[in-house]
């Protein structure tokens, strides 16, 4: 019969909680930079400049059709061969940003294309200036349309970020792996890690729902 031993986990819970904080920080930074990459990608894709569009298409397809694990190996182990070396933490952030940027590009492009031309023309007819049109007539409704897909992509990113532990970048999964190497209470440690990730996912989805209530619940008028 297997003897459960949660003692090592309880004694080192502070290490795991600190790891959880590192995962939150890493995810938030990746979301922020990833959003910037996504917007640039979407703008480039809808710009009508052919070579630029092909470049973004290639980026999106390559990233979406290869595993994140291979991407992070390529960035951390492969790129130094061509003179680009990064610390594990930087490589982890870069890999996550590159990854989520590809998915985000597609989501935001769909958002921009979801705004009917007539809506922009209506804004012009009401005498709004181009900046106001972009801000209130394009960006805000587009954001509302894509908000659910964008935020679920962000939560998926947070879960994926556990993979950065394979290059020993600092996060929750790494904290667990370190603890496992010292105490060998493997099942108990990974059970608690899984629960912590679940709570993080729950926390992020609560946060996103709150943001949605504040910014995106004006009358839709369909």
């Amino acid at each position, binding site marked *: 019969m297997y003897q459960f031993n949660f003692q090592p986990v309880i004694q080192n819970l502070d290490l795991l909680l600190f790891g959880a904080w590192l995962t939150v920080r890493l995810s938030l930074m990746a979301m922020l930079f990833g959003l910037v990459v996504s917007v640039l990608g979407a703008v480039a894709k809808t710009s009508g400049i052919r070579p630029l569009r092909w470049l973004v298409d290639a980026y999106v*397809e390559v990233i*979406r059709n290869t*595993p994140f694990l291979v991407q992070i*190996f390529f960035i951390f*182990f492969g*790129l130094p061969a061509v003179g680009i070396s990064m610390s594990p933490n930087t490589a982890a952030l870069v890999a996550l940003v590159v990854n989520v940027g590809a998915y985000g590009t597609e989501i935001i492009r769909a958002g921009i294309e979801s705004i009917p031309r007539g809506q922009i023309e209506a804004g012009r007819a009401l005498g709004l200036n181009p900046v106001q049109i972009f801000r209130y007539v394009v960006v805000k409704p587009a954001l509302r349309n894509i908000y659910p897909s964008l935020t679920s992509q962000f939560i998926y990113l947070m879960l994926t970020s556990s993979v950065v532990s394979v290059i020993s970048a600092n996060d929750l*999964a790494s904290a667990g792996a370190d603890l496992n190497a010292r105490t060998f209470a493997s099942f108990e440690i990974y059970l608690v890690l899984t629960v912590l990730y679940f709570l993080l*996912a729950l926390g992020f989805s609560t946060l996103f729902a709150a943001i949605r209530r504040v910014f995106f619940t004006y009358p839709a008028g369909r």
Partner: protein
Amino acid sequence: MIREFSSADILFIVTAVRWTLILSAIAFAGGAIGGLAIALSRSSQNRVLRRIATGFIQVFQGTPLLMQLFLVYFGLAVVGLPIDPLLAAAVALTLHASAYLGEIWRGAIEAVPSGQSEAATALALGYRDRMRHVILPQAMRIATAPTVGFLVQLIKGTSLASIIGFTELTRAGQIVNNATFQPFLVFGTVAALYFLLCWPLSLLARHLEARMRRALMR
């Protein structure tokens, strides 16, 4: 000893593709059975079943696949089974696929207009006949595109089995890299092979989705 990256290494990596395919096939087959059970429970009248299915989906979609793999891997010892990477990966990926396919197929079942179900009930069809001959055939058409899309995610997910020591495509790349120390070439090759597996499926999913949308607009 560091040696050259030779054609034998490329062959080793290419033949490891078969383990990625086998693992994906096992997980997809198991996930199809589990997913159907989850989807039917999730859309059933029975409240307890519905609650269990919802919880299952929430847990597996709300935790990292990597943690699920570790838990099953170390969990095998807890239930007294030998620790085997292939078994652990197959079980974990099957559970993972069950949750995602369950959620996709639930959506498809609920997308079939309720009039269909009501008409079938009016014709005195029981639950089994209603599902088998009326609801599921229509739901299948709706579910095809997202299911193919998930298959891409599943194939990519099998790469994580390398972390618990199962030698599939990614692990084969790591082994060759450790011997040749040509990470740029090795992981470039590995990535290209994944791309060759996944891209056609992505294109197929997109094609199916576009066809579906055209059919709905008619």
